[in-house]
């Protein structure tokens, strides 16, 4: 395992400790594995809470910040946080105007967050709603779109819902924006090399020396095909095609695109992908607004990339461009 760590079981806690002491102006850890804004909850503002497994920085905890999230519960690497931690996150995000639970569609996370929601309703009288990201087009056919996994599309929903909440909109409206954004996002991933979960100590999958897997999930979930590594333009081309097949774009449509590294793939290669994606989207008549290229949702040191398209209307575009501030992203 070629990782820089101490005891594997301390990986997450030491990471959170380091993150909070490096950026105390953004992050606080009021209880173990709960990251909240260092200033505390904003009274009268809808709180936005997320959560999920560790190993995806900046997701989840990194996006706690003004114009983004209020708190996040974080589990072991690739494992759900406990319901108790999620309830804790909700309590620390509570400004009295209700809570939006906004996270990715993974069975364990959903069960725990539902339970946490019931708990804080019962014990703390906190009203809450749920919006799930299910943007990975490969993980289920369109007829079963609600079964899809949530991946990098989350970043768009954090941004727009976060901006809406910052406008002091009510819970219904913040929830509406989050759902609208979730509905407007489609993602697909590809991987070249795996990552290693510290406590497991071995790679999440194996791929041949010159192989890639199209459609692979961010934890190494099986994709659509596995074959010899293709040129960047061919890879990007197929990814964009599959996204457009699921969410057609026509002339005049505006989209934001996120070309995201899973970790090891360098920015250089993301820009090579972006270059081709842009030509392809413009050939389809769409125009690109506020493209994002970089590491927004990772799988530690995995080599590979995901592409997310987020179709915009005036409302979403304005929210996407609204100010936001955390240690990983400033708009």
């Amino acid at each position, binding site marked *: 395992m070629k990782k820089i760590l101490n005891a594997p079981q301390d990986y997450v806690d030491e990471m959170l400790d380091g993150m909070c002491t490096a950026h105390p102006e953004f992050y606080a850890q009021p209880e173990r594995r709960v990251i909240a804004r260092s200033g505390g909850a904003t009274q009268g503002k809808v709180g936005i809470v997320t959560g999920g497994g560790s190993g995806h920085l900046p997701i989840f905890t990194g996006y706690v910040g003004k114009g983004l999230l209020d708190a996040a519960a974080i*589990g072991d690497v690739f*494992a*759900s*946080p*406990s*319901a*108790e*931690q999620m*309830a804790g996150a909700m309590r620390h995000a509570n400004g009295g105007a209700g809570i939006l639970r906004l996270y990715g569609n993974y*069975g*364990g996370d*959903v*069960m*725990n967050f*539902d*339970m*946490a929601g*019931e*708990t804080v309703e019962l014990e703390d009288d906190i009203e809450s709603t749920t919006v799930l990201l299910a943007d990975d087009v490969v993980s289920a056919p369109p007829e079963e779109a609600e079964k899809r996994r949530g991946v990098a599309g989350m970043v768009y929903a954090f941004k727009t819902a976060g901006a809406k909440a910052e406008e002091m909109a009510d819970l219904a409206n913040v929830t509406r924006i989050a759902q609208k954004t979730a509905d407007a996002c489609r993602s697909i991933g590809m991987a070249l090399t795996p990552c290693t979960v510290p406590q497991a100590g071995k790679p999440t999958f194996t791929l041949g020396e010159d192989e890639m897997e199209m459609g692979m999930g961010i934890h190494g*979930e*099986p994709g659509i095909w596995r074959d010899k590594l293709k040129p960047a333009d061919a890879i990007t081309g197929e990814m964009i095609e599959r996204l457009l097949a699921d969410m057609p774009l026509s002339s005049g449509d505006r989209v934001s695109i996120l070309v995201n590294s899973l970790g090891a793939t360098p920015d250089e290669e993301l820009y090579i992908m972006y270059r081709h994606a842009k030509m392809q989207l413009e050939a389809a008549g769409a125009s690109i607004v506020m493209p994002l290229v970089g590491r927004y949702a990772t799988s530690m040191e995995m080599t590979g990339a995901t592409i997310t398209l987020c179709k915009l209307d005036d409302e979403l575009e304005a929210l996407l461009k609204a100010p936001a501030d955390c240690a990983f992203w400033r708009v």
Partner: protein
Amino acid sequence: MTGISRAHLQIALERLAAAGASAHDELNAQDGKLGDGDLGITVARGWREAADGATELPDDVGMAFLACSKAFQRVSSSSFGTLIATGLMSAAKACKGRSDIPFSESSALLEGAIEAMLKRGKGALGDKTVIDMLEEIRLATAGKADPQEILTATDAAATKALERFRDQPSKLGRARMFGEKSIGLDDPGMLALRRMIDGLTGKMES
């Protein structure tokens, strides 16, 4: 005392914690065949945490069940742990305010738990999960009031559920993705419940 009380729960928790510890490796291995191999950890940790709080349990059996649910909410976030927490929460609601629950209510408590767990896990009966075994037990214990009779029926029902579902495919949870491969394998969640029952009935190997 004529039914389930704080004292019963305390004894049960000790036995479940011991059963969890002794089944740890077996359950991890079974879960590892088509899943992420953490079920033994989940079961052992969850019951251990609950048993550690046994001396602090309130007389109110409802609140005692709640404490057990919270123990699972605290330490085990994998599916099985959250489902057990959900079932215990349902029992908590049903028993709230009472310190003595007639054994004859066992089947009804299970019915409530099953309903809550199906809702939580977005599953259905027949998906080949721990809930199918619970349903078999609910049916077998319906109408029974004698604790020894209930345990015997539970034990038989667990065996029946394992046999009935062994050659069916998993339709829920991680194993679902493997479809046909899951045929012939016991569902790890059912096996976990089987070991928990073994612990309660004293069949546990050590």
